[in-house]
C-alpha cells in the first residue's frame, strides 16, 4: 500500500509533469535540430517563433470562442492550431526570403547566420509584444482534468492524489503524432529523403539534382509548424507570456545539443533527459521517502538536492557537461 502511495506521488509530481514538459521541449528541439541540420546554423529565434505562433493561435482561439465555436471536452486552441501554423509558416518563409536568403546566397559563415538569427529573435520578440501584449494570457478551455485528483483519491482510497490534466494528455498525444509524422516524412517520402541528402552532403545533393530552394522551404515549413505546435502546447499546459518563451530557449537548446545537433531522434531523447533532470534534481523527495522508509527513519529535511529556483541552472550544467565530455551529443550530431 505504501509503495503504491509512493508511486502515485512520484507519478503525480515527477512522471506526468516530466513527460509533458519533455514532450514540449522535444518538439521545440526538433525544430532547432532540423534547421541546424539543413540550414547549418543555430536558430536563436526559435523560442520567439514559438511565441509568435502561439500568439496567433490565441487570437484565433479568442475569435472562435467569441463565435461560440468550441471543442467540447478538448481545448478550442486545437481547432485554432492549423490557422496559427499557417501564419507561422508565412512568417518564417517571409523572414527567410527577406533575411536569411541574402546571407545564404553569400555563403555566409554559420556564426554570421547565428548573429542574424539573434537579430530576427529581437524583432520577432518585439512584434509579438506589440501584437498581443506582455502580460500573461490564458486561453485554455474545455475540460480541465482527464483524471481529477479528487476522483482518483475517492476511487482508489489512496492517500495520494494523481491528476492528469487534459492539456497534459493532449501534449503527449500530439507530440507522439507529430514525431511519427515527421519520421515517416523524413524516411519514406522523396522530399524527406532529399532533405536528409542535403543535410548530409550539400554539394553531392546539388550535383544529383536536388533543388536547394525547395529543401530550404520545406525545412522552414516543418520548423515553423513544430514551433507553433510546441509553443501552443506549452502555453495551453502552463501559461503564455512572451518573456517566458524567450527563456525557453535555454532548455530547448540544451535538449537539442544533449541529443546531438542535427539528429531528430537525439532531440526527442534530449528533451526528456533535460525535463526529467530538472524535475529529479529540484524535486523534494520527503513525501515519497516517507512512504518507503521504515517508521522513524524520516528526519526533518525535505530531501531536496537543489531549490526549485535552480531549475534553469540544471539545464545549464547538463549543457556544459555534454559540451565538455561529448560535444557531439548522445546520438552523435555535428
Amino acid at each position, binding site marked *: 500500500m505504501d509503495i503504491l502511495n509512493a508511486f502515485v506521488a512520484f507519478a*503525480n*509530481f*515527477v512522471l506526468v*509533469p516530466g513527460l509533458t*514538459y519533455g514532450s514540449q521541449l522535444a518538439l521545440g528541439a526538433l525544430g532547432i535540430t532540423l534547421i541546424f541540420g539543413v540550414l547549418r546554423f543555430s536558430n536563436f529565434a526559435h523560442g520567439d517563433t514559438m511565441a509568435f505562433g502561439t500568439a496567433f493561435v490565441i487570437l484565433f482561439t479568442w475569435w472562435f470562442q467569441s463565435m461560440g465555436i468550441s471543442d467540447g471536452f478538448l481545448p478550442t486552441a486545437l481547432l485554432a492550431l492549423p490557422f496559427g501554423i499557417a501564419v507561422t509558416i508565412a512568417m518564417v518563409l517571409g523572414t527567410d526570403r527577406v533575411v536569411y536568403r541574402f546571407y545564404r546566397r553569400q555563403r555566409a559563415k554559420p556564426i554570421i547566420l547565428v548573429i542574424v538569427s539573434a537579430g530576427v529573435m529581437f524583432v520577432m520578440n518585439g512584434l509579438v509584444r506589440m501584437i498581443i501584449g506582455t502580460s*500573461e494570457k*490564458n486561453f485554455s478551455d474545455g475540460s*480541465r482534468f482527464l483524471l481529477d*485528483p*479528487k476522483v*482518483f*483519491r475517492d476511487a482508489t482510497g489512496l492517500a495520494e*492524489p*494523481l*491528476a492528469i*490534466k487534459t492539456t497534459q494528455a493532449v501534449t503527449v498525444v500530439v507530440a507522439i503524432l507529430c514525431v511519427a509524422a515527421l519520421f515517416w516524412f523524413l524516411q519514406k517520402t522523396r522530399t524527406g529523403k532529399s532533405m536528409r541528402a542535403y543535410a548530409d552532403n550539400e554539394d553531392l545533393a546539388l550535383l544529383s539534382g536536388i533543388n536547394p530552394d525547395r529543401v530550404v522551404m520545406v525545412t522552414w515549413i516543418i520548423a515553423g509548424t513544430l514551433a507553433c505546435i510546441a509553443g501552443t502546447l*506549452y502555453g495551453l499546459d*502552463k*501559461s*503564455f*507570456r512572451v*518573456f*517566458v518563451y524567450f527563456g525557453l530557449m535555454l532548455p530547448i537548446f540544451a535538449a537539442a545539443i544533449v541529443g546531438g545537433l542535427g539528429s531528430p531522434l537525439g532531440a526527442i531523447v534530449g528533451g526528456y533527459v533535460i525535463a526529467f533532470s*530538472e*524535475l529529479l534534481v*529540484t*524535486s*523534494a*523527495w*520527503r*513525501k*515519497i521517502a516517507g512512504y518507503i522508509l521504515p517508521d522513524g527513519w524520516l528526519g526533518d529535511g*525535505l*530531501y*531536496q538536492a537543489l*531549490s*526549485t*529556483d535552480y*531549475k534553469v541552472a540544471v539545464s545549464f550544467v547538463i549543457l556544459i557537461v555534454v559540451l565538455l565530455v561529448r560535444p557531439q551529443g548522445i546520438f552523435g550530431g555535428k
Partner: protein
Amino acid sequence: MKKLLLASVAATAFAGAASADDVKLGILIGFTGPIESLTSHMAAAAELAMAEVNASGKSAHTFTSVRGDSTCVDAAAAQAAGERMVTAEGVKGIIGADCSGVTRAVLQNVARPNGIVMISPSATSPALTADEDDGLFFRTAPSDAREGEIMADILMEKGVKSIALTYSNSDYGKGLAEAIANAYTAKGGVVTINAAHDDGKADYSAEVAALAAAGGDILVVAGYLDQGGKGIIQASLDTGAFSTFGLPGGMVGDSLPAAIGPALDGSYGQVAQSDAPGAAILTEMGKANATPFEATSPYAMESYDAAALIMLAMHAAGSTDPKVYKEKIMDLANAPGEPILPGELGKALELIAAGTDIDYQGASGVELIGPGESAGRYKEFVIKDGKYETVTFR
C-alpha cells in the same frame, strides 16, 4: 531683467518671512516614483486637514504645507528633500515619508538629528517598529507584522495545526511571510516549509511539489494575485496538493476567483480595510474639496490622520516644539475621550482647549499601539461563490 530678478527675490523673501503664528508642516512623499499615482491623493488629504484647522480659527496657528519629493526609492534624494524642509523651510513636523526604505533613512538622518516629529501614513515595514526613534516617529499605517498576527489568530481559530507557507520573492512577500511564520509559531502552530517563489514564471509545478512534500493542513500564499500567487494556487489544485488556501492582503482582488473558479471557494484570509465610520465622511469631503481627491485611494485616509494628529498635538501641548508635542500624540490618538471623526477637527480643538480628553478616530480609525504605530483594521473574509465575503473586522 535685473530689476525683475531683484523683485522676484524680494517677493520670495517676503513669502518666506512668516508671521509668528504661521506653522509649516512638511509633506514628504514620493510625488515621483513607483507610488506617484497615490501621492496626489495623500497630499491633498493632508492639506485638507490643515485647511480645516485653519478655517475653524480655533488654533493659535495658521498651518501651511511644504511639499517635498521622497521619490519612494532613492534614500539620498529623500534625505536631501527632508533636510531642505527642516533647515530652509523650518517645518515643525513631517507627514511622511512614504515607502519603508526612505522612511527609515529620513528618520535616522534628518528627523532624529534635527528633533522633528515624523508621522508616516504608509510605511509598513516591521523593521520600523524596532528602529531607534527618540519618540519622534509614529505611523498611521499598520506594520506588516500586524497582518501576520491577525492571520495567525484566524488560523488558530479555524483549528489549523500546520501550514505550508510560500511567498513572493520580494521585500513585501518575505517580510509578510516572516511575520506570519513568527506569529503562528509563537501561538503553537507548525510551519512545515517557508519557501519563496519567483513571480512571472509560466509553471509552478516544481514549487508546488516541494510544498506538497512538506505537507500541511492548508497552504498560505503570501504573494501577488496577478503573479506567482495565482500560479501557485493553480498548480496546487492541478496536482491535488492543496485544496484550501490562506490569502493575505496581496492576494485579494476580483481577478483571482475569476481565474481560478469554484475550486477557490472555502479559502480565507484577511486584508487591511477599515470599517471606521470616518472613512465614509472623508470620502465625501474629498469629493467636495476644492481640489477633489479620492479618499479611498490607499493611504489617503492615513495621510489626513497624520496631519490632524500633528496639529492637534501642537494645540494640546501649547507648543510647536516637536520635543514637547510628541508626548501628546499617543494620548490624543487613543481612548479614553470624546471620539473625533474627520470634519470635526474644530470641535476637537475646542474640546482640547476646554481640557476634555479626546480619542482621535479620524478616517482610518486610528489606534496607536507599541512604539506609536497603527493597530490597523483588517477584514477577515472567506471566499464563497467566487466572492470575498466579509466574516468580521478585527
